């Protein structure tokens, strides 16, 4: 039995392994390439997306002074409600006494117009906003009167086409009016009082192209739905 060092016989140079058969390798190349490309894309898109989202935070600005008013009034309506009137290009505006969002919209009769939601507090005698339910009741009554009875001033008249009480929050009303100075514009509005806050949801013709002849009755259900959702968001 040989138990010495392992015998070293000269070995022929190892033949290079013949290339493996290529069947199936194209598929593997495709899979690997696609995965690598996706990974690289995800990394780049993720960074760009994060930077974009951070840099373009549209609602960056002073916070509302009163906690009763929402910091993001454009989120008061749902996407499906906004879709029902083709609302686009939201614009939010804020002052101490109010938060508003308005959109370009197209109403059920095909006319263009603005949809808007306003949350506001009544002003006191110094024109300062106040959180006071009785002041809000008085303010609601003043606005309700205009929306139910109309008004007839020297420079501004409100003609009521139809109106009715609603059952949203503390008190509410919906009204269709034609507002006129030298020209006339159509408007539908839902007015709601939620404690010390007034919520106004309106559909109106664009100021520059108003006719006073738009038929917004087909949009009333959407306005009422939005008002209900907006009121609930405050409760």
């Amino acid at each position: 039995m040989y138990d010495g060092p392992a015998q070293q016989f000269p070995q022929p140079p190892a033949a290079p392994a013949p290339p493996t058969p290529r069947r199936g390798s194209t598929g593997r190349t495709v899979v690997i390439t696609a995965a690598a490309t996706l990974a690289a894309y995800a990394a780049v898109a993720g960074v760009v997306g994060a930077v974009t989202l951070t840099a373009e935070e549209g609602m960056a600005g002073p916070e509302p002074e009163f906690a009763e008013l929402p910091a993001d009034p454009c989120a008061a309506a749902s996407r499906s409600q906004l879709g029902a009137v083709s609302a686009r290009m939201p614009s939010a505006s804020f002052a101490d006494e109010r938060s508003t969002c308005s959109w370009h919209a197209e109403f059920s009769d095909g006319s263009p117009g603005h949809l808007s939601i306003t949350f506001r507090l009544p002003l006191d005698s110094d024109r300062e906003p106040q959180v006071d339910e009785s002041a809000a009741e008085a303010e609601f009554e003043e606005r309700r009167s205009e929306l139910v009875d109309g008004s007839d001033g020297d420079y501004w008249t409100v003609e009521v086409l139809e109106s009715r009480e609603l059952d949203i929050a503390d008190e509410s009303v919906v009204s269709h009016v034609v507002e006129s100075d030298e020209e006339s514009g159509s408007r539908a509005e839902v007015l709601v009082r939620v404690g010390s806050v007034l919520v106004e949801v309106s559909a109106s013709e664009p100021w520059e192209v108003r006719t006073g002849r738009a038929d917004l009755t087909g949009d009333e259900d959407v306005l009422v739905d939005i008002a209900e959702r907006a009121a609930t968001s405050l409760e």
Partner: protein
Amino acid sequence: MAYPQAPRPPRTGLTVAVTAVVTLTAAGLLTWAGATALASPTQVRPAPGLPPDPCSQLGEDTLAAMDGEFYSWYSGTYANGCTWTMSLAGRDDTPVYLTRAVPMSGSDARAAERFSADGEIHRDVDALFAATVDDAGELGYESDDASVVDTEEKSLDFGDESVLVVTDIDYGYSDSVSPRVSLIVREGDLVSQIRFSPLASDDGIDADEAEELLAEVATDMFG
């Protein structure tokens, strides 16, 4: 030593390139579709080139130096703005308005045409700048009583181009005219405007005086 010839290698480079392009295209389309779906009407997203947070355009030191206070602000897709009250031209609580806008594009511009009496939507920044300067020299609304008496324009050195416009308005209820000062500045695709109305006076003010009044605010914002 002869070995069996391997089958002709496939064009691996070409496969990789084609796969990468197809994958990137698909991923890009999906991302675009996702981003479009995310452009929700429940959220304000400024168009490219429109910086958010207009109220931060004026530094706190300048605001404090002018007894300034925040009053209101707004934020839309193609425009945003902020209003302060400050001590200016010897008057406390003068409202000072900043508005900023970029040109509209695509389907938004087509939609907005229906909202404008003349259907004029500014799709490029030169038209937007020119229209903003023109508007600064006009009353801005129909009136039987009020009218523009005089308008003076002066080019300044802010941004890529800038014009100061002093518009003297006779509101029809007194003998004096009320000046209105507007500074319009273009920076790339962004057109900004600061506007305020000094107290009415018998003499009015000229563009040099108006420039001096606005100097601190304008330098802070655009200097």
